[in-house]
């Protein structure tokens, strides 16, 4: 509990800017999404017809939409598993007590500044069949030159790779911070008791990293569901034949290219339910206990 000042009007005035922006540009459009999801647009968006829950029924009977859910989940699992394994590995290695540790740290976390578009164009060029470096290497090593963009599985793999690279910095930042918070005495005590490096890692370090891992799993899920649009738009445009069309890409296509507003709004609602679940999970599991409204 912090010491309080006394004033009747001041706290409301202080909160006014945040509240106005939240109500106008967050709550109002979000509520309108709910309303829109109950309508169908006809005549080039000129007329709206109330259809109740039929947009949702259409969603869950549409093979294309169900497929985009499956692709999103596969994509998310790939980003989480590959991304977190790599980050943890790098963080543990660079956390060792050696000269230049800080420089190494910066050398690993800089990808935090990367954007989806930058990761996208660099990846697109690396995987270019004629001038890229990847096919040169695969040809050199195994004598194959795969067509990444037009193969269903390879395209998805390529997109996952770019997404993992872009988020590496974020993950390593949090793992490094967590590693620095582990009390050294415990590790030293374990060493004196004769524990080797592997035992120390799996029995002590890993245990201390559990809350951070949980936090990162959720943040990476949110990232792969909501913030990877740019990567997909630049690398594959959802193709080949929808093989990389994730839920958010499908929403964009239906809303702004097919102009199926009600149908797309229903997809927004599905995304809202997902982000709600993930946010609640994060609050429930995270270490930081937010004491509401003190």
């Amino acid at each position, binding site marked *: 509990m*912090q010491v309080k000042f006394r004033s009747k009007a001041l706290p409301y005035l202080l909160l006014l800017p945040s509240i106005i922006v*939240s109500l106008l540009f967050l709550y109002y459009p979000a509520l*309108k999404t709910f309303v829109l999801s109950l309508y169908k647009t006809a005549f080039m968006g000129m007329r709206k017809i109330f259809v109740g829950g039929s947009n949702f029924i259409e969603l869950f009977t549409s093979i294309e939409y169900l497929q985009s859910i499956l692709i999103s989940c596969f994509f998310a699992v790939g980003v989480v598993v590959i991304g977190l394994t790599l980050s943890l590995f790098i963080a543990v290695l660079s956390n060792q007590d*050696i000269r*230049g540790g800080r420089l190494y740290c910066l050398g690993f976390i800089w990808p935090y500044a990367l954007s*989806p578009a930058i990761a996208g164009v660099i990846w697109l060029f690396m995987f270019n069949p004629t001038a890229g470096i990847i096919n040169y290497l695969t040809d050199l090593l195994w004598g194959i030159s795969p067509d990444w963009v037009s193969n269903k599985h390879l395209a998805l793999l390529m997109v996952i790779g770019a997404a993992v690279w872009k988020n590496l910095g974020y993950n390593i930042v949090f793992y490094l911070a967590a590693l620095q918070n582990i009390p050294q005495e415990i590790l030293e005590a374990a060493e004196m008791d004769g524990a080797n490096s592997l035992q120390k890692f799996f029995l002590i370090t890993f245990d201390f990293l559990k809350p951070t891992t949980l936090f990162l799993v959720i943040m990476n899920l949110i990232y792969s569901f909501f913030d990877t649009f740019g990567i997909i738009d630049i690398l594959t445009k959802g193709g080949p034949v929808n093989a990389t069309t994730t839920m958010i890409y499908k929403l964009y296509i239906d809303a*702004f290219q097919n102009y199926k507003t009600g149908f797309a709004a229903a997809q927004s609602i599905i995304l*809202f339910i997902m982000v709600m679940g993930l946010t609640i999970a994060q609050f429930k599991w995270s270490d930081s206990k937010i004491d509401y409204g003190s």
Partner: protein
Amino acid sequence: MNKYLIKKWTKVVLTHLILLTMMLIVASPLLFAIIKSTQSMGEIFSYPPKLSFGSATFNNYKKALLDYNLARLMLNSCYIAIVITTLKIVFSILGAFAFVFFNFKYKKLLFWLILITLMLPIPVRIIPLFEFMKQLNWGDSFLALTVPFLASATGTFLFRQYFMSFPESIVEAAKVDGVGPLRFLFQILVPMSLNTIGALAVIELIYVWNQYLWPLIIITSNQKQVVQIGLKSLIGTGDQGTDWAVVMAGAVITLLPPLIVFILLQEQFMNGFALSENK
């Protein structure tokens, strides 16, 4: 007798080697992009791929910045990033100050009102927000890129957490001296919150600079576009397909501002955000 020393040194050298290799692997896509951004069309398509600096550096960067207008788009992105970040920090500080240092009616309700905005990212409200912007006549304007992003639940909670742990003795002393709430906020609290301000500045500058989906749909004129979309539009604009050297130059240019901000404010970012309990 030196067995122990030798063992120790091999371990140190080995660790350095492993770390350097890992660093190189993580950076390799970017290094590839930097090298390719200096090459001419012929060098780009040479086989085997040329992996040393080329002869067209100046030409490629000039093309990206001036011929393809990235310089202008960089300015747009800078302007938007600075406006949003500044106002977001101000609004978050004001809100957090109210939550921590005052008791008032409906405090819980207002707290929840801001908390729940965490669950309303752009994809959840993109269609109505797009229509709303058109109604306000804000389509294709910087207003549409900035105003809807000025409230920040993350920022409010970051400052709230820091304010709650602020030494009570300082607040008491200020009150005894007859310092009012606003003077306390601006002369004592804000100057002592620089770490948190720095951390939020990094997060928001990079977040805004990297925005993609919203500008893609709301901005239609090339002069008002942000640099990320400009980067995308470099693909497929060359005489024969894509001028990859120019695209890579564009990628390097686009990465520089957030990278510099990140390196400069790295310490604040770690102390004020990653190491703090509230994320």
